[in-house]
């Protein structure tokens, strides 16, 4: 599938496993994301996410649609979270650390799949900045996404 650049005002939604969610040590409530939520694994070419505007209007329904699509392919657990950030903010944060990334839609694995390319040299400080500011809005998985994930797991 050919790749296209995603405009700066658009948004990315990235799945974050529970173990990479920063939690209040007293209450266990999710209070943010750990920097390592944005660390590339050795086999990752770019930082994976879903492109929210891929789902069209209304904007308020986009996160739920993206989560449902993601859950049809990957495991989503109740205490996992999704991180939302604007493409322009993500690129600006990377630029502060001299990383000129490309944010593209490639549909790899699921139709709305997007990737932050040229992210390989990201420093730990950049990951921390993404987790705390540029890509920091956290959203709990919808019950529909959890249900889809459960059904898929049972079918395996």
């Amino acid at each position: 599938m050919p790749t296209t650049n995603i405009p700066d005002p658009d948004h990315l939604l990235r799945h974050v496993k529970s173990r990479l969610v920063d939690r209040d040590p007293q209450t266990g409530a999710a209070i943010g994301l750990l920097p390592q939520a944005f660390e590339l694994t050795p086999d990752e070419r770019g930082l994976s996410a879903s492109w929210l505007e891929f789902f069209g209007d209304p904007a308020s329904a986009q996160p739920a649609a993206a989560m449902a699509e993601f859950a049809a392919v990957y495991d989503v657990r109740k205490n996992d979270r999704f991180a939302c950030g604007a493409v322009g903010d993500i690129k600006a944060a990377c630029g502060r650390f001299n990383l000129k990334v490309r944010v593209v839609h490639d549909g790899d694995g699921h139709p709305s799949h997007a990737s932050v390319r040229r992210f390989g040299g990201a420093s730990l400080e950049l990951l921390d900045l993404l987790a705390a500011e540029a890509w920091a809005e956290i959203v709990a998985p919808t019950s529909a996404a959890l249900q889809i994930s459960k059904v898929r797991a049972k079918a395996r």
Partner: protein
Amino acid sequence: MNAIPDSNIFAATNAVAWPLGGGGTFRHPQASASAVALAFGDPAGVQASFQARYRGFGSGAPSAAVNPDWKALPSSRADPHAEVFDRLIDLKVSTATIAMHLQDAWRTGLFRQLDDLLDEENWHPGDTLPTPDSFRTFLRLVIMLGRPPRPGLGCTDSGNILASWRRTEDRLTIECRLDDELRWVLSRRLLGETESAAGICKVKNLRSRLAPYEPEVWFVAHDKHSRP
């Protein structure tokens, strides 16, 4: 801490034995019976959960009378849920070896965090479990820091424990690696400016590396529940 009767300690150690070893007398390499008792604030509860998971293996020696099929049961390593549970117990037992450095409430809180981290409902099958080596580094970090408030806990893709402290805009995240190595990153508001820094060092050198950023903001307890 309340005294725990020897019979309960025996039951707890036996309860640990069967899922891990499948037979014989269990002795955790790092834990005495009293350490296991410390690890399980509620041995009866732990035993009950073991019994629920491993029917017929919960107390006393396994026998065909209790469970005729016990020899045919797969080892815990073949069951990902059991593997997660075994690791949870390993980490708690490791904690018990330094229990004298921790207040009961701090240790209980840490155990609750470990329960959440390794909750089988939320742990993704196939993910690398927190490694005992990394957890040992975490415990040494806690001891070295003296009396830090309890941090948030996480785990990297490679099984390294993550400890995080937040105080309004100020945040510190430390990855605990093998052999006392720490990989840390911080953001700190000082004199109206936000500074960030990152580094790698040994546990024993962390305080001096963080000193320019006035780390007391993270390491001085602000309420009675978070003191170790």
